[in-house]
């Protein structure tokens, strides 16, 4: 079931969220395989807690041909479910910044990986919790197009592939193309009758594989979290607390809490009592409070005024051989091999390193985060935003400063890249990448056509001239929380060349000192010493004389 190296990454015509819909079927690099064993039935504990056995419902006791047919059956009883989902980001792919009003979300932003979903919906929407979003004409009000199963399937047979605009596999198909591997359609009746609460595998089927490869996007989310040990994640540890994603990302009316778009960077106060609505339940503090260390470690509690829990407790991210992608250079895309044909290359760990369709990548494992002041507010580059090509373009700008009481020092993943922009209009371009048509970059290897088609779909002017600009994306790291024994030690920051050596606006003993005072102080001590030595020396000399 696991696809090996042959699962050529080039075949993964992926936009940011474009992946196979069950985690273990995704094109994970070979090393990842050992970390993630397939599981067929997820979390029976949650399933058995249900008061309803869906296999006994007559509404579900019939063959289903398509996803929307299943949804119609679900909605017979769950009358409000689709309406609820339609209010979530999982459906709209849009998020409005409550402070600035900026419309973000996958529908609007340009990211640093597959860049934009616009004009690539058929592929990208393999990760949309819906059916049929193939272009801008998608009707967001049709309830039967909500995909219940992708989050609630417990059989791990339900798969959505790129190219189907969010529909699951209905007919046996070779995937990736020419790989010799085939994906069978799921028995939708069986899937519908076995639904349960979302498990790590459900969430992970998209969130582990964003940017088209296992672990590529987040670095703190990959398939190793399906069956993690304590070392990888102290909360998800399968033999220990065994948290599901939704244990922290507590969900109400299908609204999943704890979005990166609106983060609580500095949750305050003690642990929440049940029902407290005032802060994100996904924050560490909602369970631990902001003084989580025992009294004999009171000094650590004082650090919560400036430092996010994650800074010490996630000492490294991508703590496995799967690793994460640190850069994506689109400017190398369309380069052909010596034979003039497109080619792919992997790095020594079996991870994608080059693909003529997509460019060049750099990966790493056990990555030390870069640290930033962060107040939870990020400003994103949305489609059409002007850029200054003379500088590295910040795909998102992390808000926060040392003087801001809502800012903390956070660990971040900084993903660097190069992507095309319109050299006359100074906008990042939207390019049509996925698809089998003449303008698709991954089909025709022609940037001009791909950008032309993408910009047209995005209703943006395109001058016809493009070049590549350096870009940077900065994401807070918050998963893969290590056991306390593995948390950072004091001296890893409290030293001259420590982790936080570039963080300004905070005085850190051992890192900082006033040079003038130090010189004056040691001079005072030295002069005193010299003074008493001379005084004593003369006393000894004169007493000998007298003696």
């Amino acid at each position, binding site marked *: 079931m696991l696809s090996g190296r042959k699962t050529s990454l080039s075949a993964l015509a992926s936009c940011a969220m474009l992946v196979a819909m069950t985690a273990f079927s995704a094109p994970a690099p070979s090393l990842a395989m050992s970390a993630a064993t397939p599981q067929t039935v997820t979390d029976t504990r949650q399933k058995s807690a249900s008061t309803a056995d869906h296999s006994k419902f007559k509404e579900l006791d019939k063959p289903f041909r398509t996803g929307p047919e299943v949804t119609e059956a679900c909605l017979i009883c769950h009358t409000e479910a689709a309406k609820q989902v339609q209010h979530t980001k999982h459906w709209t792919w849009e998020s409005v910044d409550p402070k600035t009003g900026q419309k973000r979300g996958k529908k609007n932003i340009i990211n640093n990986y597959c860049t934009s979903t616009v004009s690539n919906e058929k592929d990208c929407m393999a990760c949309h919790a819906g059916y049929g979003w193939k272009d801008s004409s998608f009707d967001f009000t049709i309830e039967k197009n909500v995909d219940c199963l992708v989050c609630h399937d417990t059989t791990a047979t339900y798969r959505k592939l790129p190219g189907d605009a969010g529909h699951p596999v209905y007919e046996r198909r070779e995937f990736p193309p020419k790989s010799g591997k085939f994906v069978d359609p799921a028995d939708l009746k069986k899937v519908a009758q076995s639904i349960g609460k979302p498990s790590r595998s459900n969430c992970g089927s998209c969130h582990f594989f964003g940017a088209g490869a296992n672990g590529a996007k987040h670095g703190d989310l990959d398939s190793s979290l399906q069956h993690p040990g304590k070392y990888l994640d102290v909360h998800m540890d399968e033999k220990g607390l065994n948290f599901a994603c939704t244990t922290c990302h507590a969900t109400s009316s299908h609204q999943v809490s704890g979005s990166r778009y609106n983060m609580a960077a500095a949750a305050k106060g003690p642990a929440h009592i049940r029902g407290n609505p005032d802060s994100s339940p996904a924050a560490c503090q909602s369970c631990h409070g902001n003084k989580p260390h025992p009294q004999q470690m009171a000094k650590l509690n004082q650090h919560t*005024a400036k430092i996010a829990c994650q800074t010490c407790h996630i000492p490294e991210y991508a703590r496995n051989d799967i690793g994460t992608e640190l850069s994506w250079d689109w400017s190398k895309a369309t380069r052909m091999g010596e034979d003039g044909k497109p080619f792919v290359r992997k790095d020594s760990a079996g991870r994608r390193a080059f693909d003529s369709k997509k460019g060049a990548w750099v990966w790493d494992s056990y990555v030390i985060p870069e640290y930033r002041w962060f107040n939870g507010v990020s400003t994103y580059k949305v489609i059409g935003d002007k850029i200054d090509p003379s500088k590295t373009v910040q795909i998102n700008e992390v808000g926060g400063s040392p003087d801001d009481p809502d800012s903390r020092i956070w660990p971040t993943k900084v993903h660097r890249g190069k992507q095309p922009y319109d050299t006359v209009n100074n906008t990042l371009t939207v390019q049509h990448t996925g698809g089998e048509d003449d303008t698709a970059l991954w089909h025709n290897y022609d940037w001009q056509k791909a950008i032309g088609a993408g910009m047209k779909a995005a209703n943006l002017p395109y001058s016809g001239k493009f070049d590549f600009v350096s870009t940077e994306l900065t994401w807070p790291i918050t998963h893969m929380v290590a056991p306390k024994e593995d948390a950072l030690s004091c*001296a890893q920051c*409290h030293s001259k060349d420590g982790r936080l050596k570039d963080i300004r606006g905070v005085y850190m003993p051992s890192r900082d000192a*006033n040079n003038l005072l130090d010189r004056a102080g040691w001079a005072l001590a030295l002069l005193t010493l010299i003074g008493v030595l001379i005084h004593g020396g003369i006393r000894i000399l004169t007493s000998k004389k007298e003696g």
Partner: protein
Amino acid sequence: MTTNKIYVFKRFERFWHWSQAMLIIFMLITGFEVHGSYPLFGFAKAVDLHTLSAWTLIGLWVFAIFWHFTTGEWKQYIPTTEKMIAMIRFYSVGIFKGAPHPFRPTTLKKHNPLQRLAYLGVLLLIGPLLWLSGWFYLFYADWQAWGVDNVLSLEWVALFHTAGAFMMLAFLIAHVYLTTTGHTPTSHIRAMLTGWEEVD
């Protein structure tokens, strides 16, 4: 020259002196490590030991302050100009010629005028500088609750604390040396150990 002995330092006073001396030396060692001057215990251990010593010293001071006020011994630190010039002359000239010590300690006046001044400086300047800044350092997280977070910065608190530490270090060096300037080189130290001071 006959040698007399007088009882200068009472038992609690001697206990206070030596435990305070050890704590201060230990806090200088750990403190300068926290400051980043050298590695010794490791940062985390140094912070723990420094904090533990600080609390111990605070506890000791509570007793010492009580003792000083109940016994009236605090009067020993009232500055005086009496014999001040004589003392300066002794340290700068007389001591090299074997001149007699101009100050003769008694139970009521155990410190010479320069000692009084120096110890008063430690008590009123270096001490408060260290423990005030140290207190704010220790309770950094409570600044907001105390309403001082806009007035203080950790950088300045650390600066004053470090400045106090350097002054204390200089005092310590001079103080240790000056213990050898008694009737014999060890008579002051012996007095602080036994309570009995040899005098001329």
